[in-house]
């Protein structure tokens, strides 16, 4: 796969957008402090609301990065417009790729939410079920993570500038955790650790700091959802605990990818 970017006739035009979410992925881009100036020199960032009010909202974009879920009608309109004006569209962060935290509570019926809101003070917005941006329009690349890895973002931009698409890690967190020689959160600490189901690339950051993997980077290609749950339950961990731990980031995606054995996550 190659990225078709303008070569020799000016810098690629880049837009960075946030739908419903915490803006943490955009913040990670700003956190690339050592590389920001070089990056700003290599591309023309023409539309990025988080950093400037002087944006070109209509021009063609060579690359666009989108974070967040579609949780309002307005989100969806924006997303479709971004797609229409962009050559190479990149989803950044687990919200955009898998649904992430906003998708955790989709099981609560919307009419129940409407009934339970405080009618006197809150207006029911044009909200919809929170679904990942990748559910609605085709993306050319997906960078998972909550938030994204800075290094992965930078190598992605650099690869695209070279006209190539980076190969993202497909290995589970366990590989990186084992090579870091951490005590296993499951075996040695009897915790619900989602590392075996979760895509690596984070360097097993959480287990290396003594915290079980919460699954923030979304499912590996073929997660064995059922065997993981059986394993946790077999170690005497309560179903409530298992459910609470696994629900954080990717449970809806694990259910879909793991139980139905569907490759990819298009519904």
């Amino acid at each position, binding site marked *: 796969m190659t990225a078709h970017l303008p070569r020799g006739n000016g810098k690629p035009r880049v837009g960075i957008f946030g739908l419903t979410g915490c803006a943490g992925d955009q913040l990670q881009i700003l956190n690339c402090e050592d*590389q920001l100036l*070089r990056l700003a020199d*290599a591309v023309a960032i023409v539309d990025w609301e988080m950093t400037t009010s002087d944006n070109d909202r209509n021009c063609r974009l060579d690359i666009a990065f989108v974070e967040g879920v579609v949780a309002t009608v307005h989100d969806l309109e924006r997303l479709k417009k971004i797609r229409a004006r962009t050559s190479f569209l990149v989803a950044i962060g687990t919200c955009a790729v898998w649904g992430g935290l906003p998708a955790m509570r989709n099981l609560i019926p919307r009419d129940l939410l409407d009934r339970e809101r405080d009618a006197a003070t809150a207006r029911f917005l044009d909200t919809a079920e929170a679904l990942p941006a990748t559910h609605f329009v085709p993306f050319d690349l997906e960078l998972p993570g909550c938030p994204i890895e*800075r*290094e992965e973002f*930078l*190598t992605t931009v*650099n*690869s695209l*500038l*070279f006209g*190539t698409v*980076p*190969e993202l890690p*497909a*290995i*589970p967190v*366990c*590989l990186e955790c*084992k*090579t870091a*020689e951490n*005590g*296993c959160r*499951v*075996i*040695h600490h009897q915790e619900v650790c989602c*590392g*075996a*189901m979760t895509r690596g690339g984070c360097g097993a950051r959480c287990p290396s700091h003594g915290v079980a993997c919460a699954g923030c980077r979304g499912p*590996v*290609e*073929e997660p*064995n959802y*059922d*065997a*993981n749950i*059986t*394993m946790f339950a*077999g170690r005497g961990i309560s179903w409530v605990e298992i459910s609470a731990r696994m629900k954080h980031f990717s449970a809806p995606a694990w259910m879909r990818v793991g139980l139905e054995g569907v490759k990819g996550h298009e519904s």
Partner: protein
Amino acid sequence: MQTLRMKPDLMAEFLEALAAWGRVWAPVEREDGLFSLAVIDGDVTRARPDALRTAVPFKKLLLKPRFTMLQSAAGGTPVESADNDAGAQVLFGAHACDIHALKILDLLFLADYPDPYYRRNRERLVVVGYGCWPDDRCFCDSLNTSTADDGFDLFLTPIEDGIQVVVGSSVGDDIVRANRHLFEPATRRDARHYLERLSTRKEAFKLKLDVTALPFVLELKKDDPVWDELGRKCLCCGSCSMVCPTCSCFNVADEVTADSGAARVRTWDSCLFRDYATVAGGHSFRGDRGDRVRNRYYHKQEAFVREFGMPSCVGCGRCIDNCPTGIHVVEVFQHVRGTG
């Protein structure tokens, strides 16, 4: 081969002396009951050669889990990287199974097409073995890897009021000659203690794997339902491959770096990952988890035997220790054979 003895209280001095031969790696306690090979320069008292197994074996001294083979600055010409070149290293506390595993890696990486990255570190590796005592996950005795006759420079075995030191190479001899004051001639009593230890140790092995005609059993049991059952139980997390002293599959990928240079990177990999057997067009040789689990066991006990005349499992028990779902290699083979 020469046999000497050393007083136990000279161990620290011996370890300090080893530093003249390279950076000294030894098992150290990392978490409660969890051991890791670490460089002990500076504090040799951390060395715990009695530790039965480190989670990740010595293979990380020869090939790092991730290293750069070639690199180039932005727009520059690629040059070879010395990222994996560790220089002179001393592995202290290798058990007999580790030494056999090292010989297996030598077969893989030095026989037909020598791997320069492996070779550069292997040639400068000094191996000091240490006699261990089995627990309920050791089954090296079934695989004839519970003792080592060669493949080490020195081999230390704790015996009654002393440590037996066997010299196994000219480098081992150099170490002894340079530190004469640490060693004494072995006595007849030492030999008796050693032989007694050997026979009681043999009795101490509780876990046994029957390898009789195992390649033939496996050939006949390719379609056994056990592989599908294992496929349902296995998480394909790759932990067993990472901790296996003879698992050595790797991936090579070209990457653009964060500072816009480029690097060719070699990383540890595992045949349990779907990605590993995926080829152009998205086709996979081993699409099902069951296929991949079977492949790993067949590689150890069938394919390797046919190619090299011995299994590539040394019975160290690391995969038993580290499987989160409790897949037990010995039980798997008992099940396949119909005896478990």
